[in-house]
């Protein structure tokens, strides 16, 4: 109470020497500075947009796009809207990312395990692959594979792989599956098999936990999925046919074509990310201390079982978090598609931007979409980490 009526300088000094007051003051200054900066940008933007005669807003999504997209998963024509064009692009991004993630995982795990094998030659070869792909820009690799693919012979002189796959400068011609009557039943039995395998798996896990008796889950599960599906497939007279491409004079009849852009982008992203994943896998396996495998051997577990029951579960704990961030990197790197003309989300967004002039909106859409992908992934990672922590106790 003695401070009432104290000179103003004393008040200021008291604020300065009180940590809470100081940090409040500092934060107020930060917010003020940021607000000023944003106000400056907004004022400039409004002035610049008016000077260019552009109206901000997302109304242009409904306008006609007037451009074609040759790689599309849903119906689209040049009469469709900008909004639909962006959806086509997003689906293309997701397509190449999903294909790339699958391939990169396979390549990465194979390479990571092979590099740890005690075979000297194989270890070295994998090492060369990993170091070379990791240390060269992925954009360069994408362009490299694309120029290799577009440098292939013309359609008339396609290179044939086993008589069913054809490589030429317009991409890869593949057999197309034809679903005939009754294929739905096969699919239904396939899904039912997976459900049954999951149920049996839970039961086997509970029994294993309670009694310690192991259960040959892998074989039973595979049997549950494959055997009924195959029986139904043959019982209904093999309702799946392949439309194998046939050479005609100048082109192919049948089959479907995968563009060189998609193949190059997919292959480059898979090998590039695969190299990173192989290092993650290797580090994960090496992170399990030697005592674990020695203890398992001392308990009489055979090497295969040691790997499956002791090493891999512990290694996965180390592997999964960086693995998800590699998946995210692959998805983000798929935006490099624009350099070779694969029409992904960024590439189509760029076309929309050029046609409509709505730069701010398009860039905002890009950022929102990629941010939600990455925030979704990190949410999954946090969930996974807490899940692991629970198991660990």
């Amino acid at each position, binding site marked *: 109470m003695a401070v009432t009526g104290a000179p103003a300088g004393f008040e200021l000094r008291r604020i300065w020497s009180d940590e809470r007051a100081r*940090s409040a003051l*500092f*934060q107020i200054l*930060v*917010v003020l500075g*940021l607000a000023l900066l944003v106000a400056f*940008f907004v004022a*400039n*933007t409004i*002035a*610049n*947009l008016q*000077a260019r005669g552009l109206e901000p807003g997302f109304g242009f999504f409904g306008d006609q796009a007037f451009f074609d997209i040759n790689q599309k998963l849903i119906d689209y024509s040049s009469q469709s809207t900008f909004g639909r064009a962006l959806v086509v692009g997003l689906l293309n991004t997701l397509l190449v990312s999903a294909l790339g993630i699958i391939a990169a995982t396979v390549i990465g795990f194979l390479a990571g395990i*092979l590099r740890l*094998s*005690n*075979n*000297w*030659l*194989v270890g070295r*070869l994998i090492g060369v692959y990993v*170091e*070379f792909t*990791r*240390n*060269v*820009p*992925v*954009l*360069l*690799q994408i*362009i*490299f594979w694309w*120029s*290799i693919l577009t*440098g292939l012979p013309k359609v008339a002189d396609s290179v044939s792989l086993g008589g069913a796959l054809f490589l030429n400068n317009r991409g890869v011609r593949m057999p197309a599956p034809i679903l005939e009557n009754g294929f739905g039943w096969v699919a239904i039995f396939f899904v039912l098999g997976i459900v049954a395998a999951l149920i049996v798996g839970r039961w086997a896990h509970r029994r294993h936990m309670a009694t310690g008796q192991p259960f040959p889950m892998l074989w039973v599960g595979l049997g549950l999925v494959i055997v009924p599906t195959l029986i139904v497939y043959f019982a209904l007279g093999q309702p799946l046919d392949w439309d194998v491409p046939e050479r005609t004079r100048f082109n192919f009849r049948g089959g479907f074509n995968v563009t060189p852009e998609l193949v190059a982008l997919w292959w480059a992203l898979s090998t590039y990310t695969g190299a990173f994943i192989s290092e993650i896998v290797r580090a994960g396996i090496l992170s399990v201390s030697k005592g674990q495998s020695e203890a398992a051997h001392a308990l009489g577990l055979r090497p295969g079982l040691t790997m499956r029951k002791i090493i891999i579960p512990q290694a996965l704990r180390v592997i999964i978090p960086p693995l998800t961030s590699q998946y995210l990197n692959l998805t*983000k*790197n798929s*935006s*490099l598609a*624009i*350099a070779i003309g694969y029409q992904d989300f*960024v590439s189509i967004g*760029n076309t929309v*931007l050029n046609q409509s002039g709505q*730069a*701010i909106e398009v*860039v905002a859409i*890009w*950022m929102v979409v*990629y*941010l939600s*992908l*990455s*925030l979704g992934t990190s949410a999954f990672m946090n969930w996974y980490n807490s899940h692991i922590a629970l198991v660990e106790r």
Partner: protein
Amino acid sequence: MTSQPFFRQQSELLPERAPPAATTGVIGWMRANLFSGWLSTILTLAGLYILWLIIPGLLDWAFFDADFQGDDRFACTSSGACWAWFDQRIDQFLYGFYPSEQTWRVDIALLLLVPALAPVLFDKMPGAKRLRWFSLAYPVVATFLLIGGFGLEEVPTNKFGGFMLNVTVGLAGIVLSLPVGIVLALGRRSRMPIVRALSVAFIEVFRGVPLITLLFVAAILLPIFLPPSFSLDLVIRVIVVVTAFASAYMAEVIRGGLQAVPRGQYEAAAALGLGYWKMMGLIVLPQALKISIPGIVNTFIGLFKDTTLVIVIGLFDVLNIGRTMVSNPDWLGLAVETQVFISLFFFIVCFSMSRYSVHLERRLDTTKR
């Protein structure tokens, strides 16, 4: 008591046994490392087959069947690669459109990088303390050398190109992102909620979006955000967004370093009566930054590779110079040759840096395996 002797009586010599399989020497090594089991043998044979498929063809293409001399692609008549462009175009690959009588400035800037980097990377070097002042001054010196002014002929940044552009953008990005990254990392660990939230938002946004979208921001949006009277060169705008992008990654690397500094260090500093800035500046950050160097080097490798993305906004980095050259009728269709050359350059730079970072990690890792 009929006792049987526990040894067998031997009346004749046993047959000789084969000598043991070699466990030493070349054969022993091959047995252990190449043919230790049927799986290993298959893998070895497969590996040899792949080598036999690739190596001779590659050598023929790159050297034995290749052409090295000539004025255009028609001079290349053999079946292998055509390296004839190298003599004529190497300057463009290295310096872009930098005036040819001024390229010595780029060379000097690159040479000065050695004494600037050495004391940072090798702290046991004699005289490192004094050279560090030069490291601090280097960005200013290099900028002066590259852009000019004060008596040197001015070179506008739109003449920057080739490897020189990649190196400039990469180095500028990493050097400028270091202080920003430190501030962001401290902000993310700050007790002030608004500062922390802003830092987290900045870091997550810039880490979450592809660099390519940020480059579009530099090319298209920054001019809209800034007053028309205030125009920045495209290269400068690219460096600004690349810095923002790199500082988000840098912040995470440094945060890792900050977390690795033992709590006792913070507590001891506080017990000595040091305030926040002195505690951070004198005690915590020097230790944290030292631990973070491998991460910083890795961030730089990633950033340096990503500088090739500037081709999507039309800058002439080395990749674009190569692409432009092979669309010239004289050198049409030599895409693979230029790409191999550029990859080798990136590989050499990035691989040596990653080896260095691995070496540092080993040295810093004091836990016994």
